């Protein structure tokens, strides 16, 4: 049986009267390509926020690589290898993509607290940045301030940052929203091509991509786990169709 790297145990999150996450249990295997789908407001983003420590769960337990991280600070979870992207871009608007990535790479390599060396002076940092910039088609805008980039470019940077962290567990919250069709596939291929021991959890409403990418799919509805299974099982599940997929030809847009 494959090793479980990340697991959520009976997670509950309440906002006042709303229960956004209701008793959710989820296991992510080593090397998983796992998708999380569900109607709008089902609690997908909330779940990611709980896993990464942006929110504190009302109840339940989170384990990462065998360690209980329920109360761990967000940055400490990143240092243990769990990285996420945001549904709504969270970027460093006064820095350039290059500076941003150089900072993230330094941070990732444990030299983020050095104050006596220049950013980018250490061996390999600049090279790694160049690689990432090229991979995400950002080389041409590497020296522009992030706030002046077009939305699509900013979206790419959002994901590039996460990958620069060299994650072992990667949580992607609608990563390709705003990215044009051609580049979507390419982007997901980049993700899919991550080393086999990296586990990925993907939230996405573009079903073509989800079914192409995922080996397992979990469906969340109203904060509760509806079902979990292989893509084929999910695609055929009438309950999923009723609450999420719909029936029309336009269902999976694109």
């Amino acid at each position, binding site marked *: 049986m494959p090793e479980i790297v990340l697991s959520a145990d009976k997670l509950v999150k309440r906002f006042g009267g709303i229960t956004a996450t209701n008793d959710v249990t989820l296991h992510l295997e080593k090397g998983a390509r796992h998708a999380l789908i569900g109607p709008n407001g089902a609690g997908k983003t909330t779940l990611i926020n709980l896993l990464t420590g942006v929110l504190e769960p009302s109840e339940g337990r989170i384990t990462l690589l065998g360690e209980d991280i329920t109360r761990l*600070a*967000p940055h400490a979870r990143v240092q243990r290898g769990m990285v996420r992207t945001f549904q709504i871009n969270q970027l460093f608007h006064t*820095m350039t993509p290059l500076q941003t990535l150089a900072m*993230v790479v330094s941070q*990732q390599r444990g030299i983020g607290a*050095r104050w006596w*060396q220049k*950013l980018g002076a250490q061996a390999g940092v*600049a090279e790694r*940045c160049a690689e990432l910039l090229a991979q995400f088609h950002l080389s041409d805008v590497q020296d522009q301030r992030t706030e002046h980039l077009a939305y699509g470019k900013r979206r790419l940077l959002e994901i590039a940052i996460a990958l620069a962290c060299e994650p072992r567990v990667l949580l992607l919250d609608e990563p390709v929203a705003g990215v044009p069709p051609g580049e979507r596939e390419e982007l997901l291929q980049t993700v899919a091509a991550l080393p086999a021991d990296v586990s990925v959890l993907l939230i996405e409403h573009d079903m073509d991509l989800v079914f192409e990418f995922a080996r397992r799919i979990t469906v969340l509805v109203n904060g509760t786990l509806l079902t979990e299974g292989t893509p084929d099982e999910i695609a055929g599940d009438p309950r999923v169709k009723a609450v999420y997929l719909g029936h029309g030809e336009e269902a999976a847009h694109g």
Partner: protein
Amino acid sequence: MDTRASLLNISRMRPWEPVLWLIAFAAPLLLPSKALIVNEIAIVALFAVSLDLVLGYTGIVSLGHAAFFGMGAYSAALFAKHVMPDPLAGLAFGVATATLLGAVGSLTVVRGTDLTRLMVTLGVGLIMLELANKLDWLTGGADGLQGVVIGPVLGQFEFDLYGKTAAWYSLTVLLVCFVLARRLVHSPLGASFKAIRDNRLRAGAIGIPVTARIATAYTIAAALAGASGALLAQTTGFASLDVFDFHRSADVMLVLIVGGTGWLYGGIAGAIVFKIMYDVLASITPQYWTFWLGLFLVVLVQVGRDRLLRPWTWFGKRGRA
């Protein structure tokens, strides 16, 4: 451009920088009558650079920076009075106590919004002021601390009435601190400060220990503020309660904003502009100079600092960032 070169380019020394410093160091010789104001500018500039580290680079507003300034000033003065008159030792002591206070004080700024930080720091500053007032057996209370005698720098250079030694001493300390600060802001650590300023949520999400970094930035800034306070006490041979006063924190903030935040030279530029303007205006109209200073600030903001402080952009195309 090659990524590495492009990255390192940002921190390259610009040709005008050594020129600026040379002029600064030559000033007390060329204009001996202005040595005292050069000294004062250097002190304020150092104070403003310190604020820039927290405000400009880390995005932490502080209206209580005088707490560290005052701590440095009183520590250095008391050290000279009770332990030994050597200025460098006193400076080190002032920096040390201010650093300590900064480390403790940083607990109050790691959480909250801009407004909360503004007020908490302000509160800490005012409490320090009241404390210094109450501890009058140590600080001399509201009359100020007297009997401070500062020895010669390095056992060689006496503080003279013309203020030349003072000016060079302060300029040297400013230069050393500035070089260190410059190193810092272009380093990975400095980049993480900027990241926290721009987007704290994301900074945490890429593994930056946000709280600890804010505390670090704040403590470093406190150390520099302490140094500038110590310089003031040593070059005037006096310390009084107003080193802790609210207006000092407010003034240094104005100085920094005038010069521009997040630039390091902003603090220096602001100090030069502000002090010279005060000196000129106040000698023309000692009663109403605040009006003209206010007018300057209003115009500065309305016209835009970039265009006012960088004359070469007055005629060029606008909109280039």
